């Protein structure tokens, strides 16, 4: 649910990075944080376990600049990917404007990807959202690893509805901003339609 403030001339939107445990959601946000100018970002908050697994969420506020005199702000969140944190994932999806599904390209994680994607659909549905109607992007992460599946195979398994998809290596940042831009753009186009 975007928030439009005519008084302060601001538009706020919420983007959620979803995906199985260790697929690289937090790494995506860390890279964006490192490469964003100080005046365009707020503090990144990570509620994580001692072993740096996301426990509740990561949060990164970005302000992208102005459109027609309105400041556009994006609030980026990641969910905890580990299966047993499902209750937390549901909470973070509340009020979402756009979703990035981060898939782990490694062959041995394909089942985890599929399970997480199903979980995303179910959790969205519980909140009254339909994934097919939301601004939604798929990112194939960890392309640098030798055990990565081909994009064709991943596409067949994870992107049957043909939404925009990107290859990425979140540790080096390849594809990270492309993904963010794509989802932000879809959200703004949605707002434009005034749905």
């Amino acid at each position, binding site marked *: *649910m*975007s*928030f*439009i*403030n*005519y*008084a*302060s001339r601001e*538009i*706020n939107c*919420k983007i959620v990075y979803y995906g199985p445990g260790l697929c690289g959601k937090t790494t995506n946000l860390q890279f964006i944080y490192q490469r964003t100018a100080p005046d365009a970002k*707020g*503090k990144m*908050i990570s*509620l994580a376990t001692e072993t740096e697994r996301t426990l*509740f*969420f990561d*949060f990164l*506020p970005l302000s*992208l*600049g102005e*459109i*027609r*005199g*309105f400041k*556009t702000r994006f*609030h980026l969140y990641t969910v905890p990917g580990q299966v047993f944190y499902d*209750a*937390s994932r*549901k*909470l*973070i999806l*509340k*009020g979402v404007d756009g979703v990035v599904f981060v898939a782990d390209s490694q062959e041995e994680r394909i089942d985890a990807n599929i399970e997480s994607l199903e979980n995303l659909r179910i959790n969205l549905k519980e*909140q*009254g*959202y*339909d994934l097919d*109607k939301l601004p939604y992007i798929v990112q194939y992460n960890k392309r640098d690893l030798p055990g990565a599946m081909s994009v064709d195979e991943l596409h067949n398994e994870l992107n049957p509805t043909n939404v925009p998809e990107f290859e990425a290596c979140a540790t080096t940042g390849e594809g990270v901003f492309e993904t963010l*831009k794509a989802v*932000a*753009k879809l959200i*703004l*186009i949605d*707002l*434009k339609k*005034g*749905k």
Partner: protein
Amino acid sequence: MSNPTLVMYDEEFREVNEVIERLLKEANAKVIFLVDKNGQLISGVGETERFDTTSLASLTAGNIAATGGLAKLIGEKEFSILFHEGEKDNLHISIVGGRVILVVLFDNRSSLGLVRLRVKKSSEELSTIFEKLMNKSEEREKRGSSDFPFAEITDDDIDNLFS
């Protein structure tokens, strides 16, 4: 889709700020924030520049969401008031009109009793304003939201954001 955009207009923004400014004085508080349940800051008064308001808003909403989840687990609808006591500063967090979060930060120049009392009164006023706001945006939506700033943006406008 259960995804109504929250819209804030000048008039209601002024009204909301009047209420929380007054609450700030009457409750002897240091800072007061209004946050939407999704973690977006609506407004803040008092010593706001001393705090990272964006982070505060997001964590408050996460906190309310988590305790709301706990409430459901034990068969409660929600916990409408949370209180966090620190060594110097305390946080009083409450839900207003079911959808906005009111955060009051105060120290020993005030007291929990006083804050509670004043928050109760202000909450009613805020509820009324937010109710009015919801009706207003619904109405505008029905009329076809011609004043919507995004209706006329072009692809170029969007691309320029990322340049």
